[in-house]
């Protein structure tokens, strides 16, 4: 079982958790002083005001003074605040006599277990509060938190917060506790505590602009749509007041698509909206093989958006008719026979 879909940013090592101190506090302080001095020198060099010299200005100045053609952004010369270059690390956790400061030091993951203890304490308090409410015969308040706009911290973000390595199991246990805490009615303190571990998801689904209907010479309403699937590219023009005929590259679908599955796919958007015999479609398609049907399906679904209410467009999206299928043929790798198939293993 492995972690899927990790970005390169998420795969960077959690330096803060590994090993003892690599640089002392005095060293970091000196680096910060040198950085500030250097910032002022740079501002003077560029002819700008040293008091109002921001990080973006620094980046621009360095890119101007030291132009680099290297591909990797991390390899180019950079001047950043030492807290970004030297990641946070754990201070020494025991005193001069060798006795550790924290009572959970010998568990190995002191910050994780202390966090679990704290969260569980909050949970018990919330349960007590709920019992009090029930004892006073008040109805239980159900505050609806905006689930859609926030997400929990990822495992790597939590590791950075705690400066300790965590296992997937421990991370999932912590998230389960938080979810349990969220279901109970709790006061302001617990709300703030939960907000520490959740992040806003600002990226709303892009509002797609639905084109209005166009009218051709005969006065019949029509709309166009484009679709792709693997290597096939299709454009579909859907006319109103039709008999339900579909023409592809000048040929009727019964001759162009001998396979029943492809024809089912072409009719899927119309059948979903109960408009099977009402629209005429003229399509052009190029490239691909069996995926032509999928491309035309997407194109006709996009064209039908102009004929239909917003709610039905939302229903179509939830049925998976308006998403481009990102699956493509996986590349063949060297040392293997195909994308996944390895060569026959020979013992000798």
């Amino acid at each position, binding site marked *: 079982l*492995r972690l*899927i879909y990790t970005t390169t940013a998420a795969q960077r090592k959690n330096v803060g958790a590994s090993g003892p101190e690599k640089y002392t506090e005095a060293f970091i302080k000196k680096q910060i002083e040198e950085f500030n001095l250097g910032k002022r020198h740079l501002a003077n060099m560029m002819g700008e005001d040293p008091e109002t010299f921001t990080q973006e200005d620094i980046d621009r100045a360095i890119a101007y003074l030291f132009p680099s053609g290297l591909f990797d952004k991390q390899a180019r010369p950079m001047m950043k605040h030492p807290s970004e270059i030297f990641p946070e690390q754990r201070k020494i956790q025991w005193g001069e006599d060798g006795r550790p400061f924290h009572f959970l030091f010998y568990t190995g993951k002191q910050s994780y277990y202390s966090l679990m203890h704290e969260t569980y304490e909050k949970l018990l308090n919330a349960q007590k509060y709920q019992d009090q409410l029930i004892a006073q015969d008040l109805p239980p308040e159900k505050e609806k938190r905006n689930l*859609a706009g926030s997400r929990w911290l990822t495992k790597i973000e939590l590791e950075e917060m705690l400066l300790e390595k965590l296992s*997937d199991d421990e991370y999932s246990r912590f998230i389960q506790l938080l979810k349990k805490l969220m279901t109970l009615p709790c006061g302001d303190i617990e709300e703030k505590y939960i907000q520490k571990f959740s992040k806003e998801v600002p990226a709303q689904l892009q509002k797609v602009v639905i084109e209005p209907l166009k009218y051709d010479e005969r006065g019949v309403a029509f709309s166009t749509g484009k679709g792709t699937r693997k290597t096939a590219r299709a454009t579909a023009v859907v006319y109103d007041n039709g008999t339900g005929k579909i023409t592809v590259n000048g040929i009727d679908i019964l001759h162009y698509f001998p396979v029943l599955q492809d024809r*089912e796919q072409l009719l*899927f958007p119309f059948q979903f909206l109960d408009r099977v015999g009402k629209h005429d479609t003229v399509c052009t398609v190029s490239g691909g093989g069996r995926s032509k*049907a999928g491309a035309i399906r997407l194109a006709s679904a996009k064209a039908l958006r102009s004929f239909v209410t917003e709610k039905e467009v939302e229903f179509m999206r939830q*049925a998976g008719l308006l998403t481009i299928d990102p699956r493509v043929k996986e590349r063949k790798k060297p040392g293997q026979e195909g994308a996944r198939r390895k060569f026959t293993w020979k013992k000798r």
Partner: protein
Amino acid sequence: RLTQVRWSRYNPSFLEPEVNKELYQKPWEELSEEEKEKLELKAVQPIKAAPPTVSSSVFSDPMISKFTNMMMKDGNKVLARSLMAQTLEAIKRKQLEKYHKAPEEEKETIECNPYVIFHQALKNCQPIIGLSSITKGGKTYQVPVPLKDNRKRFLAMKWLITECRENKNRRTLMPEKLSQELLQAFNNEGPIIKKKHVLHKMAEANRAYAHFRWW
């Protein structure tokens, strides 16, 4: 997040599409609170594209598509689909023959819908307990183990297909043999039901080792 797939072209935040038309035709007031919350959540999350095998028409059935995929050899979906269609046609023909020959009282009990027969036959073939080999102290024991729904369905379909492909049926074509097996399974007779009973008896016989299971 942990899954057994190495990687997928979709971001893990994408949800599965819901193709069933009836769910979308319910008016807003009839939905319960949980469903309303679910809808609101779904409105903000991206959704995967519907696969080409799935359609909202009455003729597409997930169980039938799964069975067709299992029957498919070397990616020849066209052939597998035509065999499936011929099987369903054969079942309908046999049932209609029986219907027209039967006396008036029995006519209502005979089931003619091939989809209903297929689903019922599959249900009858599904085992309840399976056996799993557990090695303890050097010896391997066959331990009775409860099966998940997916596993039950898979075993039923696998038994049906292997039964039709092998067991000395050189002259009969696949649709004919399959329709025969499905009708037998529908009436709780036939070799596949026998196989299921044998498995149950073995599980009952190995009851003593049931405590070896740790999940």
